[in-house]
């Protein structure tokens, strides 16, 4: 088993390396001189030369890559052009809201989607099933920012239950922190619920046809027990896998949701950095998000043995 874990981690390294190369090349492959792009339209040729030297752009591309990634692995992504701070400290400032939003969203989505999907599978073909499937098609189709603004309009502007926008740090009180995070999390959870509910329904449906489910029913176990301990337990692997895949959707959603609700997280930072043409920050944030995505999926892969003891390596 440790052997498997070791091999699995090793297999992830090439993907991480390729992601790093792609993120690095994105800036280098732009038509024109990246130093000139960074310097902006009003720059003199001296400014451009200065930036080029500062970024090490006069060296061979391969050397540049290894310098960049070597420093990056030590947490040094250089200095932000726009914020005049190190990129690392910028990210450290912005990470709390994003983590909080993402965590609450995953919890919320799982709590909503798994029971819904199970219920839909249990009552396959009924009106409940149709409603759940209908919600999931709609969840895929309504853009995150439209959901966000509709929720703000109804619950913040009309009903006044929640603040319109903004974020409160956890250190300043849990109540206010949670209160401001609820609408953004619901917004972000919609797509996730759609994705998860569908997958839960499909995998529970498959399990419900198994012999052991029939046996459990035959020996007179209540339906709820059969559903939770026999069906859902055995459907856990695909459900958890989809939670992992959904992280990509979640990260995309974070960028949008933070802009809608004016939350000072990494998503907002990405957009602001792109608009300010602050490339060191853009590269670092994209690299961070992609690595997080790959590592979370690796962790989920490794969790399979815990979830399903039948899986042995």
């Amino acid at each position, binding site marked *: 088993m440790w052997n498997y874990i070791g091999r699995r981690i090793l297999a992830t390294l090439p993907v991480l390396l390729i992601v790093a190369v792609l993120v690095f090349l994105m800036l280098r492959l732009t038509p024109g001189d990246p130093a000139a792009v960074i310097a902006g339209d009003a720059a003199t040729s001296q400014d451009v030369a200065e930036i080029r030297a500062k970024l090490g752009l006069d060296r061979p591309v391969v050397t540049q890559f290894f310098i960049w990634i070597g420093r990056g692995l030590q947490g040094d992504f250089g200095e932000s052009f726009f914020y005049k701070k190190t990129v690392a400290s910028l990210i450290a400032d912005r990470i709390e809201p994003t983590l909080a939003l993402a965590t609450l969203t995953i919890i919320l989505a799982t709590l909503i989607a798994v029971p819904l999907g199970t219920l839909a599978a249990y009552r396959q073909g009924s009106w409940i099933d149709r409603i759940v499937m209908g919600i999931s*098609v709609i969840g895929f189709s309504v853009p995150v920012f439209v959901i966000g603004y509709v929720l703000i309009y109804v619950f913040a502007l009309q009903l006044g239950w929640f603040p319109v926008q903004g974020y409160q740090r956890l250190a300043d009180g849990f109540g206010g922190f949670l209160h401001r995070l609820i609408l953004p999390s619901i917004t972000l959870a919609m797509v996730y619920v759609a994705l998860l509910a569908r997958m839960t329904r499909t995998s529970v449906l498959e399990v419900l046809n198994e012999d052991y489910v029939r046996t459990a029913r035959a020996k007179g176990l209540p339906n709820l027990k059969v559903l939770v301990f026999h069906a859902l337990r055995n459907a856990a692997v695909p459900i958890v896998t989809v939670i992992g*895949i959904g992280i990509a959707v979640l990260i995309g959603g974070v960028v949008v949701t933070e802009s809608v609700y004016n939350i000072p997280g990494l998503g907002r930072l990405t957009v602001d950095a792109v608009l300010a043409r602050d490339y060191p920050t853009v590269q670092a944030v994209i690299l961070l998000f992609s690595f997080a995505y790959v590592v979370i999926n690796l962790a989920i892969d490794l969790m399979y043995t815990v979830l399903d003891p039948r899986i042995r390596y």
Partner: protein
Amino acid sequence: MSAVPSMIVEAPAVTARKPGAWLRLLHNPSVLIGALLFALIALMGIAAPLLSSIDPGAINPSNRNKTPGYETSERDDEGRKITRKAIMGTDSLGRDIYTRVVYGARVSLIVGITVSVLSVVAGLAIGLFAGYFRWLDGVVMRVMDGLMAIPAILLAIALVSLSGASMMTVIVAVAIPEIPRVVRLVRAIVLSIREEPYVEAAISVGTPAVKVLWRHVLPNTIAPLIVQATFICGSAILLEAILSFLGVGIPPETPTWGNIMAEGRSLFQVYPHNILYPGAFLTLTVLAINMLGDGLRDTLDPRMSKRL
């Protein structure tokens, strides 16, 4: 197994080509409703100049931020008074929201259709060769894994920001994250078709690789690709709107649904119509495409429908 599992593309879906598969589409309510809605929106985009006589970019300082239903009057060249009703109100530059929404359909549809054609063609070409020529496979698939590990929105934002905002850049930037998904699908199909006796037979009598791919492999990819292209069209429209909304997409003067919403952001609390109308049309369009896709998948590709 690769580091990033894909959700739609896992099973090599080989379609049983029964006669009448296309006919069965007409009996699928999801396909019918989706196609009808999509056709209506497409018609709206095509007939935009007939549906509104105003220029979608026309700025009118005296009509700024009017709520839906506001009547504007102006005098034409002969001095007659013309009264127009801004049924969806106006934005902070006095542009008519209804007109911009109608014209916005054009951009969304052009982006959606171009992106799905572009990414399917590119993904098909890469997938066919990667699946067929084994020496290519390792390298190509690792690059695809890497591309898929970067969340689509971030990849698109970065690509647009680097090459400057224009319709063409946005189309390319939205298409690139979609390509790996097509490649995986096509490759999976190629791998399973290669093992079919008729393909082995064709190879053993010395049929050139390109001909094998063209005659035997390509036809098997058509049905799953049509399904995939439909979903790509939907997500491309969403992604374009998100990019425009965030201010990193198509230049703001172009009437796109995302741009109308981006313009309405700052005044949303007072004038929600700037966001709600284009948002409704965007949702409806994507919903129509997704319904069409769901129906197509269930009809054309029964094995794939079990996966998700």
